[in-house]
């Protein structure tokens, strides 16, 4: 009997020694793993401000209702039903709520409805006895005061999808966090987001929080000040809102983008909550593509806008000078293939300034032919075509600057003279974004500085390097552009502006969508407004102002707008006039302040 006692006792002591001494570390670790949980604190997102510190995106404290399943006394469905009587909850949302409740533990809260109105709050508070498990908590909501006017430039935030969460273990634990989509919100996501804070908490066996062990505050996201001017956003948006188009305005001293609009647009505030299917369908399947930022992702044949490039290439390579005159008879034969001027009767003999003023095609066919594709491509590349400009936005397209090598690789076909001539009037394979056109305009009007477009203001001002283009040649081209708008007979003469003597110069362009058949040409061309929207020409205008001391470069693109002179130029004129007027007002207020 005694032997048995000793044996049993040694078993117990042996086991205790094994567990509490030999394996103690292992079990200590397991015990800590049991009890310590990490809760993450989402930092408040940084503000996005315009050049006058007017917010383009800020956070508003809103109230939302959440439900805790275990507090509903087992009447989850009736609570939700009662709630539905007070506040509208869509069927899809209802499904989502039930799904989330199933996935989460009973004591965890699930969003029921975001951004409650005052009336909704009041009715919930009044009926709270009928709503066991429902409570109201505050949360931050992203607000875009500029709304659809700046949607494409600023972007929006939305909840993360499962795909976003795949590689984001940290964010996975904060399912309520919204992240930036498109625009500045996405490009500067890291800086706007800030740093996640954390709370080490002690949790009990069912995961309920018991106490806080350690807290690290979240670091709020950085406030970003842009070059954008929300007043100009409004001007640009209002000028374009009936069209599908875009406009970019660059301050040529800084490269700062003061305006960037794309239409039709959408309300970025909608994305705070999950979009309903119908709204999403309307946005994503609209033939005018409201979700696309046309200023940076719309790629078009630049048409006559490109004549500026061709002119500079010809001047720089000594093909022409200011005195060179070329006869326009309305047609030019290369071999037996005719190239037509837009003016059937021809312009007669023209020098460069006149050719730009009237946008004569024959002149540019000729000088393109004489200059050759390689030199034109070289000049176009210097002025920003064929590659992304590097603007601080997501989704910028590079356009297309064709070359001999490109065509050889792409089509296995040699570059032909006809290709060069098409390039002379900005047609053919050539593609450019409105931003690229604006950058080209900025580089030309800044007398050859390599201007890089930026949205974000930074403390370091980089002086743009020179493109090494002769100032005389640039001045000559600008003289032509001034004539386009300000001389009788210029293609944009009717849209000339005069703000205290400050004038605008520029270049119109209309690019064909369909090939004009010989038969149509003989029967007489249809007027643009007689065509279906989809078949009308794209309309462009690039401009700068003031003409005597250029400060702003602008590009306007109107998809299927009809004509550059009739559609894009008036919009550009309207924008530029407002720009100059606002500058005047700002100067005066600054004077007053002093």
């Amino acid at each position, binding site marked *: 009997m005694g032997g048995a*006692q000793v044996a049993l006792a040694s078993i117990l002591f042996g086991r205790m*020694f094994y567990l*509490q*001494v030999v394996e*103690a570390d292992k079990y200590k670790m397991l*015990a800590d793993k049991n009890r310590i949980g990490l809760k993450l604190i989402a930092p408040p997102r940084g503000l996005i401000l315009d050049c006058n510190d007017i917010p383009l995106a800020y956070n508003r404290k809103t109230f939302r209702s959440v439900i805790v399943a275990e507090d509903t006394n087992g009447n989850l469905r009736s609570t939700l039903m009662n709630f539905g009587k007070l506040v509208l909850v869509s069927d899809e949302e209802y499904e989502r709520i039930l799904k989330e409740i199933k996935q989460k533990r009973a004591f965890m809260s699930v969003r029921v409805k975001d951004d409650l109105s005052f009336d909704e709050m009041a009715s919930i508070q009044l009926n709270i006895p009928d709503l066991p498990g429902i409570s109201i908590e505050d949360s931050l909501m992203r607000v875009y005061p500029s709304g659809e006017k700046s949607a494409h430039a600023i972007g929006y935030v939305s909840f993360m999808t499962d795909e976003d969460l795949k590689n984001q273990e940290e964010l996975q634990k904060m399912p309520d966090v919204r992240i930036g989509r498109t625009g500045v919100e996405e490009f500067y996501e890291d800086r706007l987001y800030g740093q996640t804070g954390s709370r080490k908490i002690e949790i009990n066996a069912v995961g309920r929080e018991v106490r806080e062990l350690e807290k690290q505050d979240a670091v709020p996201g950085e406030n970003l000040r842009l070059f954008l001017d929300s007043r100009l956003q409004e001007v640009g948006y209002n000028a374009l809102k009936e069209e599908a188009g875009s406009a970019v305005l660059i301050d040529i001293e800084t490269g700062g983008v003061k305006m960037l609009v794309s239409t039709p647009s959408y309300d970025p505030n909608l994305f705070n909550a999950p979009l309903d299917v119908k709204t999403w369908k309307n946005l994503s399947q609209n033939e005018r593509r409201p979700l696309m930022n046309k200023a940076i992702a719309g790629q078009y044949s630049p048409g006559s806008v490109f004549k500026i490039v061709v002119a500079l290439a010809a001047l720089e390579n000594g093909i022409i000078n200011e005195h060179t005159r070329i006869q326009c008879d309305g047609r030019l034969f290369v071999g037996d293939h005719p190239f037509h001027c837009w003016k059937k009767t021809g312009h007669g003999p023209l020098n460069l300034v006149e050719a730009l003023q009237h946008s004569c095609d024959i002149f540019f066919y000729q000088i393109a032919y004489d200059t050759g594709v390689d030199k034109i491509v070289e000049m176009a590349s210097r002025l920003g075509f064929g590659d992304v400009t590097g603007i601080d936005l997501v989704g910028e397209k590079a356009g297309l600057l064709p070359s001999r090598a490109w065509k050889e690789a792409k089509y296995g076909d040699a570059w032909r003279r006809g290709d060069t001539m098409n390039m002379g009037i900005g047609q053919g394979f050539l593609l450019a974004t409105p931003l690229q056109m604006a950058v080209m305009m900025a580089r030309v009007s800044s007398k050859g500085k390599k201007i890089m477009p930026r949205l974000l203001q930074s403390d370091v001002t980089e002086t743009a390097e020179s493109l090494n283009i002769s100032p005389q040649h640039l001045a000559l081209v600008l003289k032509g552009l001034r004539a386009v708008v300000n001389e009788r007979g210029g293609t944009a003469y009717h849209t000339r502006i005069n703000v205290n003597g400050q004038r605008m110069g520029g270049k119109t362009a209309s690019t064909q969508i369909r090939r004009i058949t010989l038969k149509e040409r003989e029967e007489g061309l249809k007027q643009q407004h007689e065509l279906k929207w989809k078949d009308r020409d794209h309309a462009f205008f690039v401009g700068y102002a003031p003409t005597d001391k250029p400060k702003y470069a602008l590009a306007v693109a109107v998809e299927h707008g009809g004509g550059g002179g009739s559609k894009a130029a008036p919009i550009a004129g309207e924008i530029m006039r407002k720009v100059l007027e606002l500058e005047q007002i700002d100067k005066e207020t600054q004077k007053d302040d002093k």
Partner: protein
Amino acid sequence: MSLFLDRNCYFKDFEMSIKDKLLTMSWSFFFLICCVVGIGIMLLYSVAGGSMEPWAAKQFFRFMMGCCVFFTILLIDLRFWMKYAYVFYAISLLLLIAVDVRGVVGMGAQRWLDLGFMQLQPSELMKINLVLALARYFHGSGEEDVERTTHLIIPTVMMALPVGLILVQPDLGTASMLVFVTVAIFFLVGVQWWKFALVGAAGLAAIPIGWHFLHDYQRQRVLTFLDPERDPLGAGYHIMQSKITLGSGGLFGKGFLEGTQSHLNFIPEKHTDFIFTVLSEEFGLIGSSFLLILYMAIILLGFRMALKSSNFFGKILALGLIVNFSLYVFINTAMVMGLLPVVGVPLPLVSYGGSAMMVLMAGFGFIECVYVNQEMVIGRLGSSDE
């Protein structure tokens, strides 16, 4: 090891005053019990998050009641207990039947009988009354009786009836304890070795059949014990967490009221069956060893007190009870250490529980009673003067 030493009966009138009895009783035995109960109350205080409610205060109150029972039993004449041993046995048997018939369901098993003023657990009573009855039975048997197999039929039935009734409840833990105690008593009175071996072999052979009759949760417990990783979030969770709690205490423990596992509810039944882990977590190997040493002291002292008895009834009674006690200690601690399956056996004197405390104190009362009356000689038929 034979206990048939003083079989030549002589009769003598045996009377002791209360004062004599109190002077004779083993106060060190009682002191050790108080120490263990004190540790228990301290742990219940800790488990409740540093509060006397809901367990510690009640446990203390029950211990006080238990002390009354303890002293009452030790002051009553041993011959009285012997005389009515079968009656007590019969009463507990009836109560067990009553529990099966109209017991209330508690913790998924019918174990309680609601008497209105208190909840009675007849299986607890049976733990003592079976020992009483068996001691009474073997008191009258001589060495040659015990060696007859037929002589063992009645005590076997006396054991089998309550075991059957308790298994129905179902309470595997208590039922097997009754079997163990009976086997121990058989062993003490001198039943031959080969009989144990025979029954043991038969028992092993019966395991597959017994498996068939086990409740699902009981099977789960056995399977989970054999392989805790099998179901780490289900049944194996308790064993795993129990080991974590014990092991994480280390040598010196996390400190009083500092146990994370117990306070954060990772321990199931932390105030009853798994309370030993709370001690180990907060006081480490030092603390748990101290408690085990206290238990061993109680057990050794109990054995010595039992062996001093001049009458066979007392010897069997006290030995049976102390064996019962030590089995409880061993099975509970081995269970929380992951050495035995989780069978629902509380840690005596420490685990929270009213019936258990009463029964334990009653048991110690009987041991003291035997000790106090150690010089009493009782004839084969149950009186000192026949």
